[in-house]
Each structure stands twice: as C-alpha cells, then as structure tokens.
C-alpha cells in the first residue's frame, strides 16, 4: 500500500503484520505456538536420527542382504538378518484388513449420514466410536481364543476351493495372517468410519439438491454428489487406518503364530510383522548389537508408514482441481 502513497509510518515497522500489537498476551501466545511448531519438527527429526544411528551400525555388520535374504539370526558374535518375510506379512495383513474394513466403513458412514434418521444416527455413531475404545490387547485375546473358532471353517472352505492359489493354500498355523487381518479390520473400522462420516456429512446441500433436481434417486444422489465430494477424505481415512494396521503390535503378536516351517505366501500361515517381530524378541533388545537389527526393521516400518501417507497426499492433491 505504501508503494502508492509513498513513505508511511507502517514502513518503519521492521517486521510482523499490522494485527500484532506487541502486547504481552500476544507475545506469549505467539511464542507458545511457534515453540510447539518447532518442537514437533525437532521430535520427528530426533526419531529419525535415533532410528538411523542405531540401525546403521547393525546394517553395516549385517552378513546377509537386508532387503532380500530370508534369515533372522542375530547373536552377539554375528548378525545375519533380512526383512522380506516381515515386509510381506506386514503389508499383506494390512492390505487385507483395508479391503475388508474400508467398504464396510464407507457403507456405515453413508448409512449414518444419508439414511439413518437423526435421532438414530447419533447413538449409532457413538457405538462405532466405542469400538476404538477397546484396548488392542483385548482384541488380540478375543481374536485368538474366541474368534479363531469361527474363522477356521471359513479358512478351510476357502482353502478347499481356492487352495490352488498360493495365497490361499491350506492352513498350517493356529493363528493365521488371515485371522489377524480380520481383527485388524475391526480395529481400524472406527477411525475410517468416523472420518468418512465427517466428510460425507459436510457434502454441501447445494450439491445434493443439484442431483435431486435432475431426478436422481437417493442412491444416485449419493453416487453423483456425496461420494465424489467425500472421496479425498475417505482416502485420507483409509490411509490413517492403514497406518494403524501396519504398526499394530500387541493384537498381531498374540494372534499370529510364528512360522514353524518354511515361508509360505498363504494367508493361512503364520508369520511376523515388523512390529510383532520386535515385540516377540523384546527380551533381546538389551544388547545394542542385536537391538540394532530390530531397530533397522522398525526403521523400515517408519519409512513404509511415511510412504503410505505421502501416497495419500499425492492422490488428494491430484484431485484438488475437481474438489473446490
């Protein structure tokens, strides 16, 4: 503004915008806000530095190929470890959980926002949120000791008919990846539902009316207006759920039996995820050489979760031009 009118008093102010008054309250609050912002950056960097500093020495001592070799022999004299099995079980269990949970979550969210009468929607919503309040150890115990009995016939049936695919070969383990996936699906259902419900509820009524005025039925209105509007939000919700599933530790540790024999691709075998591998061997973490191997596995999980979030960002960003 002063470029037009020449020099003004405002130009003398060296920094800050005209809304900052320099009063004590303002200074304290801006200090707190800025401090918190810096704190979170420091925290993330510190986590990354910690993981790297612990993992790198172990990785340098590793006699096996970290990314390709199917071994995990760590003792104080020699380190031979590789992650392909862990990566496979982690990714597959989480993906199957997503495939089960996301469609159900979307349907529940659509029911709550578009179909349920208002006085039913609120209590029903709380009920779904309540699922998130169950501690994961309870899910683990329930999954292994109660739910397993009901899943086993399903596994056997699938193996009978689709056993010829590597993915569904007949069960050998008690606690299978498949069972863990279903329990994980239940565990991520509340967060995916809650966020999907939020975004669907925010669909502007002008969009919904536009569809209805064209002669859309309720389902067609949902398809034309509500779902397209909510898609970026649902993707974020799914990614958050995926992040939770990838890192879920105690439930998976309890449910999935460690593999007795050779590695199998089947969902109906046991195995370990990054998180359950670390939890199963928590006793060995006292030695820093051995701990390094497990922290290297943790580092991969960290990177994996980061990539998932980045992918979600990219998907949402790409749709931006169409979502204003």
């Amino acid at each position, binding site marked *: 503004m002063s470029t037009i009118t020449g020099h003004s008093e405002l130009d003398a102010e060296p920094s800050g915008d005209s809304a900052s008054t320099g009063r004590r309250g303002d200074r304290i609050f801006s200090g707190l806000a800025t401090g918190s912002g810096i704190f979170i950056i420091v925290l993330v960097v510190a986590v990354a530095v910690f993981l790297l500093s612990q993992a790198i020495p172990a990785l340098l001592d590793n006699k096996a190929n970290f990314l390709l070799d199917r071994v995990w022999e760590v003792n104080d004299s020699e380190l031979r470890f590789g992650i392909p099995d862990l990566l496979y079980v982690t990714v597959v269990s989480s993906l199957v959980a997503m495939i089960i949970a996301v469609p159900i979550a979307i349907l529940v969210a659509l029911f709550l926002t578009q179909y349920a009468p208002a006085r039913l929607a609120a209590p029903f919503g709380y009920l779904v949120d309540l699922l998130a309040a169950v501690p994961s150890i309870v899910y683990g115990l329930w999954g292994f000791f109660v739910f397993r009995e009901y899943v086993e016939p399903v596994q056997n049936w699938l193996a009978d008919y689709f056993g010829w695919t590597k993915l569904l070969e007949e069960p050998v383990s008690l606690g299978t990846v498949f069972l863990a996936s279903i329990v994980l699906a239940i565990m991520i259902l509340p967060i995916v539902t809650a966020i999907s419900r939020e975004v669907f509820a925010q669909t502007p009524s002008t969009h919904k009316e536009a569809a209805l005025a*064209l002669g859309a039925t309720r389902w067609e209105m949902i398809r034309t207006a509500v779902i*397209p509007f909510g898609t970026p939000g649902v993707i974020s919700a799914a990614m958050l759920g995926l992040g939770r599933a990838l890192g879920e530790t105690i439930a998976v540790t309890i449910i999935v039996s460690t593999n007795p024999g050779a590695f199998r691709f089947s969902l109906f075998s046991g195995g370990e995820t990054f998180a359950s591998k670390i939890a199963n061997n928590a006793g060995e973490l006292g030695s820093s050489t051995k701990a390094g191997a497990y922290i290297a596995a943790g580092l991969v999980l960290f990177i994996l979760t980061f990539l998932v979030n980045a992918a979600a960002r990219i998907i949402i960003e790409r749709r931006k031009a169409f979502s204003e």
Partner: protein
Amino acid sequence: MAQRIDVKDLNVYYSSFKAVEGVSMAVDPRTVTAFIGPSGCGKSTFLRTLNRMHEVIPGGRVEGSVQLNGRDLYAKEVDPVAVRRTVGMVFQRPNPFPTMSIFDNVAAGLRLNGEKRKKVLAERVEKSLRGANLWNEVKDRLAKPGAGLSGGQQQRLCIARAIAVQPQVLLMDEPCSALDPISTMAVEDLINELKTEYTIVIVTHNMQQAARVSDRTAFFNLAATGKPGRLVEINDTDKIFSNPTEKATEDYISGRFG
C-alpha cells in the same frame, strides 16, 4: 414439449408450520412467470413444490393440487423422482458438481436417465451448451472442471445441465442473485430464448428483472412474521407494474415496503 401448470388451493407445510397458504394459479406453456415479494413470503417454497423439491427437507408436505398438463403431481402413484425429471430446476447459487468436468456436468442428468451412448451424449451436451449460450466459451475445455468457470458461466452451465434432460418446465430460484450485472444480462437473454421451448417460472428479488424477462408476474406477501405467505395477485407483467389491482402490490413495487 412445454406444458401448462395449474395449481389449486395449495398449502405448504414444514412439519406443523404452514409456510404458504391457499395458492391458486395457472401458468401457460412457453411463458415466463416471475414470482416477486419480500423475503420469507414463501415464493421460493412455493416454487419448490412445483417439482416436489420441498420434500427434500424433512417434514415438507402439501395440501391441494398441482397439475402438469392435467396430471396431478401429487397423486399417490407419482414418483417425485419422475416429477423432477420433467420439471427442471436452477438454483440461487451456481452449483455445478465440483468433481465433474464441464462435459460430465451437462451429461449428468442424461446419465442418470441411463443414456450411455457416447455419440448421443456428445450431441446432447453440445446442444444444451449451445442452448445455454455457453458453447463458444467452453468448447475447447470440456474436460476441465466446471468449478473453474466464472460465476455467470457456472450458472449457465447449470442451466445447460437442467435443459439437457429436456424438461417440460424450468424452475429458476433467484438465478442471478449471485451474479454480476453482465452475467445477469447473459442469463436474462438466455431466459428470453428458452421460453420459445420451455415453460419458465422464475423467483426474483429484482423487480426490474421481473419486468424485463417475464410475461406474467405473481406477487407474494405475508401478513406478519411467522404467518404463512399468500399469493396476493398474479397478472400480466405490464399490468402489475403499471396498474396493480391490490394496494399491497403497488406499495411493494413502488418501494414503500419490502
């Protein structure tokens, strides 16, 4: 394909609240009828009963009858979805589907009707965009988002979307209230062209607009806040603006209240 509308003793309710009372009127095919009146007088509410859009709001219902070429829109066997495919609507704020391209916005109604043939869709989209005086402005960017257009272009896009399904009546709820004067002029010109094919009913707060575009004008009013809105009088636009029958109409159009 334009059709006449006959309304008889229509009351509109939202739950127990009576929003509009005792409206009777006839609208001839291929005419433009404007509804004017102060805010809250029920003109938009009444407009929405002509394609059963008021039922979208929980508790919305009517008593009385609305006939389209002699068929009662509120007969038991009539599906509101079918009514809305016959009676199109354009809203106050331009509301193109934000996730859809310009082409898909116009094609949306056709696709809802089950039209899948690419060639037919392309023809109808072009015809509708031409009909809405928008074709020349958008023909090179049909795949771009509809939300990227200016406000006036968006509103004409919405009109194109509404006429793409070839409705028999076109309802417009203050279609220019969010537009600048130049875009308003473009939409008004469009209304003049569209009336050769469609029966048009338009709600407007702008009396000059009513005078410019309409053949007939209906004046709505309400006795007091919280009381139902009523139709005070409906007559030829010239007559309403030069020599209205009712005192209330004269007061309103001469700016003495409202």
